[in-house]
């Protein structure tokens, strides 16, 4: 047994004073002075308004910020707010604010949060993202409510978006997770979520924490752990998600390494859970489905196409051991086509993604390199989607995204065939 403790002495001391709680809202911060105050304030107000009877606490863990984040959080959620909420709540809303041990990564912070929740035997836990400035008290209700009310284990958020936004989510992450895990979940990679005490306890015993350091990676890992395990998952509608202008923005390749790398790693670790699933179950949504945002500034397609072409050309033979000959040929054909009619067809794209996932599993080349090699191909697919949607209305775009998801589902045997080539195409 490792004698290493996840909780600092300071944290343990405060946790002892708080004792058992029903609801815990966690805010893991590191250098979020400009944006964390809003989330902290919304958390306390949300607890006061929506869970006045519950034993509740705001848990703020900090990775050692030097920009005064802890003070700012304390001020935003402290005694001034108490006077405001005095009549609304029956109990004291407890505040815990302490540093956590180890590298200031999201994984370390969340591990400390989960360990704290476990120690306090919290029944419901909501984790907020300190870089998000659009948190409202209703988010707390949406993330915690289903856990307490309907005994859900994991509440994934549904944000209000434009269907052309976030092509990485719509073209890769969402349909891939939906097909592989057979659950129609909108946001498998979200910085905020709600979960039950049982989920927390299970995750603490899991290897997620050793595997994942990257912030987006942890988000994905937790969602997928919920989808793979014996957990009751639901979604909650939260509204638009706006991040602070100074929030860290990793480069696309890094986003890929975190998100796609995580999903592939989870598929690897949880294959016994998903390999026999097919179709895709609806994940219940608490509250009303949000209307799509009407306006957006979509990405420009031309640079994406260029990135795809040069990437495909430059990577050359590197893709050969990963992709089937036919798939690679089809991709090259697409690269050669007329810029206006540029398309990476659904089936080609799905085959590409599945063959990458399988190659990751079989460790054809170094896994980190493999994930990066997918980036230029994604650029092509994103461009293809954007070009295809020019002039289409919201409903048509949404149905395009749906068609892709269905293609992922129907082609799942393709994944299985490549996953274990020796076993043939069993599904």
């Amino acid at each position, binding site marked *: 047994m490792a004698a290493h403790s996840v909780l600092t002495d300071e944290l343990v001391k405060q946790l002892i004073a*708080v*004792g058992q709680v029903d609801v815990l809202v966690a805010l893991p911060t590191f250098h979020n002075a400009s944006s964390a105050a809003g989330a902290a304030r919304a958390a306390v107000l949300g607890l006061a308004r929506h869970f*006045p*009877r519950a*034993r509740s606490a705001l848990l703020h863990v900090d990775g050692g910020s030097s920009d005064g984040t802890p003070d700012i959080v304390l001020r935003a959620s402290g005694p001034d707010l108490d006077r405001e909420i*005095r009549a*609304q*709540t*029956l109990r*004291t809303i407890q505040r815990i604010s302490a540093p956590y041990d180890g590298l200031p990564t999201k994984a370390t912070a969340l591990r400390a949060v989960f360990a704290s929740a476990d120690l306090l035997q919290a029944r419901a836990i909501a984790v907020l993202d300190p870089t998000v400035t659009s948190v409202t008290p209703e988010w707390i209700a949406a993330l915690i409510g289903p856990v307490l009310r309907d005994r859900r284990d994991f509440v994934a958020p549904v944000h209000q978006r434009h269907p052309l936004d976030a092509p990485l989510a719509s073209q890769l992450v969402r349909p891939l997770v939906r097909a592989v895990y057979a659950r129609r979940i909108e946001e498998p990679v979200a910085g905020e979520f709600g979960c039950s005490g049982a989920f927390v306890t299970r995750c603490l015993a899991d290897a997620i924490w050793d595997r994942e350091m990257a912030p987006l990676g942890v988000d994905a890992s937790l969602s997928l752990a919920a989808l793979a395990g014996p957990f009751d998952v639901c979604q909650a509608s939260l509204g638009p998600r706006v991040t602070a202008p100074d929030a860290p923005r990793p480069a696309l390749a890094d986003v890929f390494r975190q998100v796609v790398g995580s999903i592939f790693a989870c598929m690897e670790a949880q294959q016994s859970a998903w390999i026999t699933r097919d179709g895709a179950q609806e994940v219940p949504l608490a509250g009303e489905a949000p209307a799509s945002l009407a306006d957006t500034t979509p990405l420009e397609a031309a640079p994406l196409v260029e990135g795809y072409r040069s990437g495909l050309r430059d990577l050359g033979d590197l893709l050969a051991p990963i992709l089937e000959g036919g798939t690679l040929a089809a991709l090259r054909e697409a690269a050669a086509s007329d810029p206006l009619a540029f398309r990476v067809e659904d089936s080609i794209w799905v085959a590409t993604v599945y063959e990458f996932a399988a190659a990751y599993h079989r460790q054809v080349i170094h896994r980190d390199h493999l994930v990066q090699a997918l980036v230029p191909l994604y650029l092509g697919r994103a461009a293809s989607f954007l070009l295809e949607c020019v002039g289409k209305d919201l409903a048509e775009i949404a149905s395009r995204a749906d068609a892709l998801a269905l293609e992922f589902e129907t082609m799942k045997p393709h994944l299985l065939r490549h996953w274990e080539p020796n076993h043939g195409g069993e599904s």
Partner: protein
Amino acid sequence: MRYAPDEHQARDPLSGASGSATLRVHPSSATANHLMPDDLWYKDAVLYELHVKAYADKNGDGIGDFDGLIDKLDHLVELGVTCLWLLPMYPSPFRDDGYDISNYCDVHPNYGTLDDFRRFLAAAHDRGLRVIIELVVNHTSDQHPWFQEARQSRDNPRRDWYVWSDTDDRYEGARIIFLDTEMSNWAWDPVSKSYYWHRFFSHQPDLNYDNPAVREEMWNVMRFWLDMGVDGFRVDAAPYLIEREGTSCENLPETHDVLRFLRRRLDESYAGRMLLAEANMWPQDVRPYFGEGDEFHMAFHFPIMPRMFMALRLEDRKPLIEIFDRTPSIPASCQWATFLRNHDELTLEMVTDVERDYMVEEYARDPVARINLGIRRRLAPLLDGDRRRIELLNGLLMSLPGSPVLYYGDEIGMGDNVFLGDRNGVRTPMQWTGGWNAGFSTADPERLYQPLILNPIYGYQAVNVESQRRSEHSLLQWMRRLIRVRRSHPVFGRGTIEFLHPANHRVLAYTRTHESESVLVVNNLSSSAQAVEIDLRPLEGAIPVEMFGGSPFPRIGKLPYMLTLAPYAFYWFRLRWL
């Protein structure tokens, strides 16, 4: 008569002597002047509220009486209470549980005669017990001779003793208190063909305190009882004495004038007697009834009561701290009266809507237990008969500021019967023994004014004074010890309070300080064991001595003082600088 200051004997908690056993009283004539060692006796008092009809029946008619009560005074002395508060024992048509009085200067024949009352009073005084009685100043019964006379004709000399009107639209600013039963504060009198004013039931016409004769007469009533030796009055419905157009007719300055008048008269000839106000309002609204120490000596602090129950269920000290934050300071000669339960429902008027919903859901899941804005249950059933919670709440009651009022039967954990209608379920006969009629009466059980509690948990065979007296670990014996410790230390009645704020919100901790004495009280409001670190640096150097067992605890130093508490446990520490 003179009271020996029994506190001197009982002050040392380590003496081991029973506080009640050392009570020493110099018997003397009950009519003699009160030569008080301390006119502020009510600040150290432990009051005990009882119904004469419910306590003990000597003559076997099924209704308790003064003779029966005299026989049971020793129980009260043993318990350690210092003052009895008798619910109305006046002649009455009993349409409002005796609060509709038809003669102020007599007792109801059901309970005995005035002579019986005098004997009771003397017996109580002989045992060192003070007695306060109800004084329903605001209204009489419509059967009272004053009202009968007043309604005879519009020019009757007593006509002006009540508030009359030809129309029913005066004083429209006054709310109707009993919304369930009354449509208006005016009632039509068919005899004198006009309306009379009543704030409560229509059979309870309000007296007209604008009339000096009424004030004088009410003072005469008080004098009647004071001369007999009564130690004070619990004044019912004090805020409603005077009516003025365009006001709510509550808490008017003229009402305070009347009260100051009565107090002045009292002080002139009857020093050391006490007036206790009933005004179910927020403490800041009750505050004027203390005046500058020239109105009431005491007033009930209503909002503390539901908050003690709430804090216990929430396992959080917040409700209690908040209500003390909202409690204004009162003149030095005045005192709050606090209670856990009384003859009425557990009233939830003085809580917010969120709090009321919570209380009703947590303490009265069965709708039968709800009445008006409250819960009609006794202490023990409210707490599921959990001894630890009963002890904790009594511990809070005895250690927080104010003079505690116990309700009869709660010292043995009596149950209730919500099916008896109104609030009769908490007014059942006292359970003395496991025998015939619980030792309350020799009458046939059918003749009892109300049935006994019979269920296997709270029934008289399980819960009674006799069996608890024989068991060292019974609630009754525990209550005796608690009251003894409380009475041994005037700091509880007279001291200031300062709340401590340890990080653990399940723990309510405070210090009480009076002159050179300091007490530290730490309560665990939760159902689980708790650890707490309390910042006691201002008390550095003191040795806490636990007050029930006398065990010394480690000396308080610079570091946070660490304590662990079992579920619902509490400590009272006397702080000694030795």
